Structures are given as structure tokens and as C-alpha cells.
């Protein structure tokens, strides 16, 4: 597999402009990794994203362990940071959408969700790792499915079977003959499209962000020859700008993901109207 482009980093090739070498553009292959362990053809393997996912969990748990293991009424540095982060999700997202009384129960889940997604996104710009775990659809999908199941179960519990059906289809007899159409669309929108868009929104943002970073990084290296050096400089500035932009997008996407999760939960808890 010496020719496998997925496992070759840009600077490992001697491929520069004017050297008779085509631009090694990033593509889908940039999101595939040779397993670190096991066989890629079977389902028993272990690769870089899995490693990053587990490491990310350890980082999150580690941070909160240090911050909250023995919390004090007068907080230390780590606890102070941890409390600020915790409070951001608790007050800034959960209380704002679900409300304090009903939302309190979902705070641990939403806090975990937020920091999990954010950490997985952050891997994108952490040196050596430099790959957003959430750019592999499995990770956003599994989170979206957890939220989706939570939403379904809550709706059932709160409204019963008929209530659930009404809630999911947006049953409203006052709209007249378009009711069947509206109900069909609502049903698809809520049951099928919702988890998909929830997952893909995060996935696509991270996927695109990583592709952009790759593009400018590879271009910086590729253009590093002759007159191209000037353009390589421009490209490298873009790498820095895009890194900063990604830092912002990663936080925003984590925020949006959790905000949507909260609004789904809120929809399940709300009285049918």
C-alpha cells in the first residue's frame, strides 16, 4: 500500500509546484485511516479517530476530575474554571431553553454532551492529532441518536401514545384539508430528518473545516518552490486564519448541537398545542 494517498502527509512527499508534480488535493481519502490495530476489512479494528475519541473522553473526565473531585466552597483555580464551564451550559443553554425547574434533570447529560462534542471538535487543531473526530459521521450520529431516543421516550412518557402521535405529526384539525399532508411532512421531519440533520450539521461543519485546513496546509507546502513561495506565504496566513476560525466554529457547533438537543427535550416536555 505504498501508493495509498490516505496515509501520506503532505510534507512527506517531495511534491512541489514546477517539479512536474500535480497538486495533492485533499479529498475523501483524507478522512480514512489505516487501522492502528486489526483489519480494516473486518469490523474489528482500532484507528486514529477511535484513539482520539477515547483520549478525548479521558481529557474531559480528567479535567472535571481535577476540578470537581474534591470541590470546596471556596474554589481553587481548576474548580473556578470548571464551575464557569459548567455554569455556561447549565444557565446559558439548559435553563434558557427548558427552564430551571424541568431542565435541572437534564443538566448532567447536556453538560457531558457539550464538552464531549467540543473536545472531539478541538482535536482538529491540536497538534499531532489534528483531526476532528466529529468529521467521521459515526460520532455525531451516535450522539444525535441518543438525543433522538431521549426525545421519543420523553414524549411518550409525557403525552402517552396518542399524545405522542399528535406531537410528532403536529396534529392540528383547524388547518383543514391539508392536514394529512402536513402530518406526513411533520412526521418525516421529526422522526427521520431530525436525527439526520442534527448529526450532519455537526459532521459537515467539521468535515468542511478540516478540508479547508488541509487545503491551505497542503498548498503552503506544495507552493514552496520558485515564485510560488510568495503564494505559499499567503496560503500559510490562511492556515493561521482558518485555524482561528475553526477554533470559533468548534465551540459554536458544540453549542448549537446542545442547544438543539435542549430544544428537542423542551418540545417533548411542552404541553401539546
Amino acid at each position, binding site marked *: 500500500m505504498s501508493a495509498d494517498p490516505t496515509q501520506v502527509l503532505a510534507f512527506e512527499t517531495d511534491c512541489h509546484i514546477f517539479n512536474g508534480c500535480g497538486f495533492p488535493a485533499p479529498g475523501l481519502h483524507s478522512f480514512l485511516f489505516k487501522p492502528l490495530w486489526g483489519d480494516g476489512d473486518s469490523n*474489528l479494528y482500532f484507528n486514529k479517530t*477511535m484513539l482520539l*475519541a*477515547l483520549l478525548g473522553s*479521558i481529557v474531559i473526565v480528567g479535567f472535571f476530575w481535577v476540578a*470537581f473531585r474534591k470541590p470546596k466552597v471556596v474554589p481553587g483555580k481548576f474548580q473556578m474554571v470548571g464551575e464557569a464551564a*459548567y455554569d455556561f451550559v447549565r444557565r446559558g443553554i439548559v435553563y434558557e431553553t427548558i427552564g430551571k425547574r424541568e431542565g435541572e434533570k437534564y443538566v*448532567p447529560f447536556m453538560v457531558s454532551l457539550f464538552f464531549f462534542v467540543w473536545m472531539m471538535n478541538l482535536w482538529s487543531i491540536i497538534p499531532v492529532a489534528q483531526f476532528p473526530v466529529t468529521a467521521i*459521521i459515526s460520532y455525531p450520529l451516535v450522539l444525535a441518536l441518543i438525543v433522538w431516543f431521549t426525545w421519543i421516550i420523553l414524549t411518550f412518557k409525557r403525552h402517552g401514545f396518542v399524545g405522542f402521535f399528535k406531537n410528532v405529526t403536529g396534529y392540528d384539525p383547524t388547518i383543514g384539508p391539508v392536514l394529512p399532508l402536513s402530518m406526513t411532512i411533520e412526521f418525516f421531519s421529526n422522526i427521520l430528518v431530525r436525527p439526520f440533520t442534527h448529526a450532519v450539521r455537526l459532521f459537515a461543519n467539521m468535515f468542511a473545516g478540516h478540508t479547508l485546513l488541509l487545503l491551505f496546509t497542503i498548498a503552503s507546502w506544495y507552493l514552496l518552490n520558485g515564485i510560488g513561495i510568495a503564494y505559499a506565504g499567503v496560503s500559510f496566513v490562511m492556515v493561521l486564519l482558518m485555524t482561528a476560525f475553526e477554533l470559533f466554529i468548534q465551540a459554536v457547533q458544540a453549542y448549537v448541537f446542545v442547544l438543539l438537543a435542549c430544544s428537542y427535550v423542551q418540545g417533548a416536555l411542552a404541553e401539546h398545542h
Partner: protein
Amino acid sequence: MNPLVQIAAESENPLLPPIPEIVIGLIAFVIVFGLLGKKLLPNINKVLEERREAIEGGIEKAEAAQTEAQSVLEQYKAQLAEARHEAARLRQEAQEQGATLIAEMRAEGQRQREEIVAAGHAQIEADRKAAASALRQDVGKLATELAGKLVGESLEDHSRQSRVIDRFLDELEEKAEAAR
């Protein structure tokens, strides 16, 4: 074709999720949710609650202290007013008592004076009676004596009689002088 191989081949499509990564993703999230949700967040919630209570407890304590201070102040004021009232009452009472005492003493003085005066009067009366009875006795005796002398002497003439009487009166005076 082996279905597993087919899945691996399909995973070239970035929207088709590789199963193993779903499993790892689930495990990774469960690790985070489990530890945060079961241990670490309840920990911090407890402390946040404690802190809230500490702050509110402090405020409550301060309020309690203020209320107590207020009540103590009112109590003190009430006691002070009562003390003033009491003092006024005592003074009034003392004045009244003093007045009664003076009146009583005055009455007592009056009574004693009257008693003394009455006793004096009685003494004088008794003395007078004693003097009168003594005088009567003496006068009788003297009269008898005088009569005897008159009878014993010859009642020759008026001058003689007069002489006798004068002499008798002189004797009487001498006796009175001697008695004094």
C-alpha cells in the same frame, strides 16, 4: 461478496457510518456521561448548594443579629422608661410619706402639748385645793387661837383689842415668812 467487506467498502462514503466507530463513540460518551453525571457534577452541585446556603446563611445571620439588636434596644428603652417612671413614683411616694409624717408629728406635738398643759392645770388645781384646805385648817386654828387669846386677855378697850389683832397678824406674817 463478504458483507463485512462490503460495509468496509461502503464506508468510503463519508455519510455511511462505520459501525466500530459508532461503538467506540458510544463508549467514549458513556465514559464521560457516566463519570460526570454520577459523580463529578453531583459533587459540584452539592458544593454550589453549600456555597449558596453559606451566603444566604450569612445574610440570615446578619438579619437575625440586627433584629436582636433592635429588640435589645427596645427592651433597653422600655426598661429605661420604666425606671424613670418608677423613680418618679418613688419620689412622689416619698413626698407624700414625708407630708403625712410631718402632719402626724404635728398632731402628736399638739396632743403632747395639750397633755402637758392639762397636766399643769390639774397640778395647779390640786395645789390650789391643797393650799385652800391647809389655809382653811390654819385659819380655823388661828381663829381658835385668836379667840382664845381674845378671851384670855381682858377685852378692856378697843386699843388693846386692836393691839392684840395686830400682834396676831404680825405673828401670822412671821410664820408665813418662816414657812417660805
